[in-house]
């Protein structure tokens, strides 16, 4: 009798897996290790130290950029999640004769447009808007972040809605609940884990965006990633490793939370 094919039985399976994991995590391990280096020479280990962390945390420019990044990510994630919930409701609950699959594809378009193209397009649009309205400020950067965050917030919300029995909403309507009450008492509570997951995903995506921020920001609008990029041009400093390690830690924490929250199925 022929045995069922199982890739795990192939020779070298374990070695290839180990190599893949090494390729994925080796750069991060090196980065994290050297962020704790006491010396300031790259590639030479001089002992364990919090030196670069202390220096980064007391650097006014880093503080300023980090605060801007956090506020930007929070507001962009909140706005994009609110829009994503509306979009997800429309594309899963609207009647089946509307082209809702086409609409869902359009919403996800920013995922497949090259980021650099999106950045150039936004730059062009925003410079036209600036000229026409005379308005300046953080609004442009925020609008750009909301734009590319929407699909990331949309996907978990939509997945949650699709896994939810539509009869629950029908049952609530059948029991005299108005459409608004149905949303408040049934849809929203059951959707909450998906909304939270979408929010956290959008937050992380906004927090680590470089390309679009770099194109859109004006003087005095440095975000943490664009600040780091600017510093690296002047030569590599272990201070940036410390900042990077903190960013990795924050992202990891948020993504783990988002995974845990969304694991409870409706």
């Amino acid at each position, binding site marked *: 009798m022929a045995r069922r094919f199982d890739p795990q039985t192939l020779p070298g399976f374990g070695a290839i897996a180990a190599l893949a994991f090494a390729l994925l995590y080796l750069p991060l391990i090196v980065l994290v290790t050297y962020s704790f280096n006491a010396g300031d020479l790259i590639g030479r280990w001089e002992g364990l130290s919090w030196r670069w962390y202390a220096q980064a945390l007391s650097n006014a420019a880093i503080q300023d950029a980090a605060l801007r990044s956090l506020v930007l990510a929070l507001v962009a994630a909140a706005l994009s999640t609110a829009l994503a919930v509306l979009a997800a409701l429309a594309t899963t609950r609207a009647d089946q004769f509307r082209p809702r699959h086409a609409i869902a594809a359009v919403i996800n378009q920013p995922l497949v447009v090259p980021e650099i193209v999106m950045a150039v397009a936004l730059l062009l649009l925003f410079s036209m808007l600036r000229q026409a309205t005379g308005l300046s400020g953080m609004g442009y950067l925020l609008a750009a972040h909301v734009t590319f965050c929407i699909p990331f917030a949309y996907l978990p919300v939509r997945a949650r809605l699709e896994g939810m*029995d539509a*009869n*629950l909403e*029908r*049952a*609530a*309507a*059948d*029991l*005299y*609940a*108005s*459409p608004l*009450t149905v949303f408040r*008492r*049934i849809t929203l*509570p*059951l959707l909450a884990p998906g909304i939270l997951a979408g929010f956290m995903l959008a937050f992380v995506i906004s927090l680590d965006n470089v390309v679009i921020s770099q194109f859109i920001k004006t003087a005095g609008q440095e975000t943490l990633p664009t600040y780091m990029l600017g510093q690296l041009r002047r030569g590599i400093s272990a201070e940036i490793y410390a900042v990077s390690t903190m960013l990795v830690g924050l992202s990891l924490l948020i993504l783990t939370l988002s995974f845990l929250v969304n694991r409870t199925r*409706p």
Partner: protein
Amino acid sequence: MIQLHSVSKIYGAGAGAVTALSDVSLTIAENEFFTLLGPSGCGKTTLLRMLAGFEVPSRGAIVLDGRDIADLPPNRRPINTVFQNYALFPHMTVAQNIAFGLQSLGRPRAAIKARVAEMLALVAMEHLADRKIAAMSGGQQQRVALARALAPAPRILLLDEPLSALDLKLRRQMQIELKRLQAETGITFVFVTHDQEEALTMSDRIAVMGAGLLHQVASPRDLYDRPANRFVAGFIGEGNFLPVHVRSRDGALARVTIAGADLTLPAETLPAGEMQALVRPERIVLAPAGGTGGLHLSGVVENLVYIGTDTHLHLRLPDGAQITARIGNGDPHLQGLAPGARAALAVPSDALRLVPA
């Protein structure tokens, strides 16, 4: 009292249009256990969804207490539903589920509390009031769904195949339970099922549906004894269908040939057009050949199937048709019968039902 006037439902438009329900008119009385029965795809669920307000008829009117409610949304109809999958709110307790409708109606807090307690007692679930839904068995969820739908005291309770997920023993129990609830609450029940035995057991009246058409509305006994057509006769219970040839109609009497045997019947029992004779297996008796009165058939025994109290006798008639008779095991004529032997059957005249083909 709720009335449907020429209700139709058509999905889509043009060449791709599908008629789910075609020109259905019926009246459901106050305090009635009314069942919509038919095979899947017959339109019974579409009809139920229109009563609930989840679908709007393409044509026709649904009149409750003199008012057309066909266009009213579900939350503005005094009609509640027990869903096939129960659709209990998973983030609420049993008591919160039952209270939901009353809260939407804006009832005072004390009244809600009293009514929830009353409903919990009605379905014998007092001890489980604070349980989460996920921690309950299918049978318990069924009771919660019933209590939740009955709590606002609707004019009509709709039940969409609510017993189909339960095992046979629990289903039998719930059939009796539903009957009791209907009698105790005095609420009109509209029950959807594809299970004819379930329909016969529980209903005051049954509407038999097939392919979007309403075939007959009648009591269980009338449906069984006087089916309106071949579809109803075939769907309710078991039956033999024999070819009928009308030789002559002579005033009050008609001379017919059924499966090769000649017979004279009152002309009024003959439907118009093509017809077949329905013979229920349990109305057939083993009899000596050549008797008089009723229909006498003889043929070759094909098979005998022992089923405990009775035996199913499959007989091949001279014209090639097969007929199944259900003979009590105490019948002495059954002794010595074996496949291949000849046997004679008799059908009393009143057990012959001529139905449009």
